[in-house]
């Protein structure tokens, strides 16, 4: 039998829960004060997504995608390739996936025209994005860890991934359909949620619910039929305001 098949998740957990949170705190110290920039980027994304048409002159798709893609690259190289790699040799192997996601986001952004988000999909999406920006960083102080150990959007993977899931759902509601590109851009975030959930759960960290619930919401939201998912957005699209644009436009 292949030896690797005999391993379980527990066998690959190489660090304890306190060490994991300590690593996040050290990561924050190394990258401070980039947090201000990434949070502002998140806020900016939220504002543009709220009404992409208001930013029609500036290509709203790119306004959203460029900072988000930069966040994914930063999390890939800075968090996975540097901080997390110091306690988990497997982390470095995930860096290319995060860079690929960054490229996918740019591509999707370049094609995104954007209508007014609406329907269940938009509600779920804005909920996830708001949680990623404001809620998730609060888990650290809620768990009794210092604020300096908070997981912040754009620097730590979980809030960045959860925010991205929200954003993709909002984009879908704006376009009133699940494009192949948006569906593809969902894969890596969902996979990461799985990895993070298993890691946190194996460490017995109660925070494991966060990536698990986020992924569940995204999967359920994504599988909703178009009409109920984006009711209302159709108006915008029909009036020609929310169409996916060709690549390289």
């Amino acid at each position: 039998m292949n030896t690797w098949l005999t391993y379980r998740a527990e066998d690959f957990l190489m660090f304890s829960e306190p060490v994991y949170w300590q690593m996040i705190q050290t990561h924050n110290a190394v990258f401070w004060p980039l947090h201000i920039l990434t949070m502002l980027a998140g806020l900016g994304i939220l504002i543009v997504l709220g009404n992409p048409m208001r930013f029609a002159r500036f290509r709203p798709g790119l306004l959203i995608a460029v900072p988000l893609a930069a966040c994914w690259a930063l999390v890939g190289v800075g968090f996975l390739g540097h901080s997390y790699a110091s306690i988990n040799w497997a982390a470095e192997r995930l860096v290319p996936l995060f860079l690929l996601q960054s490229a996918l986001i740019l591509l999707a952004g370049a094609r995104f025209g954007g209508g007014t988000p609406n329907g269940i999909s938009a509600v779920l999406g804005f909920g996830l994005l708001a949680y990623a920006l404001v809620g998730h960083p609060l888990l650290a102080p809620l768990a009794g860890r210092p604020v300096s150990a908070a997981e912040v959007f754009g620097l730590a993977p979980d809030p960045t991934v959860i925010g991205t899931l929200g954003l993709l759902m909002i984009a879908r509601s704006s376009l009133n359909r699940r494009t192949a590109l948006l569906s593809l851009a969902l894969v890596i975030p969902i996979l990461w949620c799985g990895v993070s959930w298993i890691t946190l759960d194996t460490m017995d960290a109660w925070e494991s619910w966060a990536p698990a619930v986020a992924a569940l919401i995204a999967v359920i939201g994504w599988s909703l039929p178009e009409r109920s998912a984006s009711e209302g957005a159709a108006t915008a699209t029909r009036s020609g305001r929310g169409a996916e644009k060709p690549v390289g436009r």
Partner: protein
Amino acid sequence: MIEPRVSRVSRRALLAGGAGAALTTLLPTVGWTAQTPVPSLRTIPSSGAGIPAIGLGSWITFNVGDSPVLRARCTEVMDAFFQAGGRMIDSSPMYGSAQSVIGDGLRSLGRADTVFATDKVWISDTDDGPDQIAESRALWQVPKFDLLQVHNLVGWEGHLRTLFEMKQSGRLSYVGITTSHGRRHRDLAEIMAREPIDFVQLTYNVRDRAAADRLLPLAQDRGIAVIVNRPFRRGGLTRPLESQALPDWAGEVGASTWAQLLLKFILAHPAVTSAIPATTQPHHAIENLMASTGPMLDADLSRRLIAQVETLI
């Protein structure tokens, strides 16, 4: 009660059961003194050399990344371990930053000569084994490893060839192979029967006793030293037992904690050379070493411990 199989044991160690037990409760506050008992030694069959019956694991506990505070804490654990007479530290390239944490600790404590450096080779492509070993040695900052083991039988045929060559040329003292969680015992038994290995590392504790059926007797027959990993099931035994009262006979074997009883159960098996509990606490490192002093559990007490633990966990 039975006495442990010891080769070179100080008189103090043999007298130490009760004293050591009382001492462990004081250690966190009073520190270690020269008057305290030294851990018992057991013989490595292939060389006749002695090795303390308790070593130190490093999986999870020593993988603390770049945090200076946590790295310093690991050095404190190593310091306590060495001062109390410990020697064998076990690690692997699989354990993240543990190797470099050990290396930095050894250097700052000046203990590169004291340590019985025990590491592993863990890579699927056996051609890459020598490079991985060289990298591990650089992280440990030791001139050579005492024992190298093929981790979890990964690529064992190729890696064993490399390790035997290293031993032949004097770059390694002992060759071994490891498994854990009761995995692949049949394969391991075949290797033990066929290959001239010095050490085998496996899981054996009060709840995981499968190794006693075949592997431990085989090790005795073949003159292979046995290192026992996961003595506390990664804390799965010590944590729930902590809040439970000790059996009333614990004092008879000089055990003042459940951890010591669990280790005395393991060391009672005559095939066992060393158990390697991992810890983040300096006083636990000492407490564990002290479990090797005084009497071990006899067959009756072992049975009673098994029954008691089964009702409690």
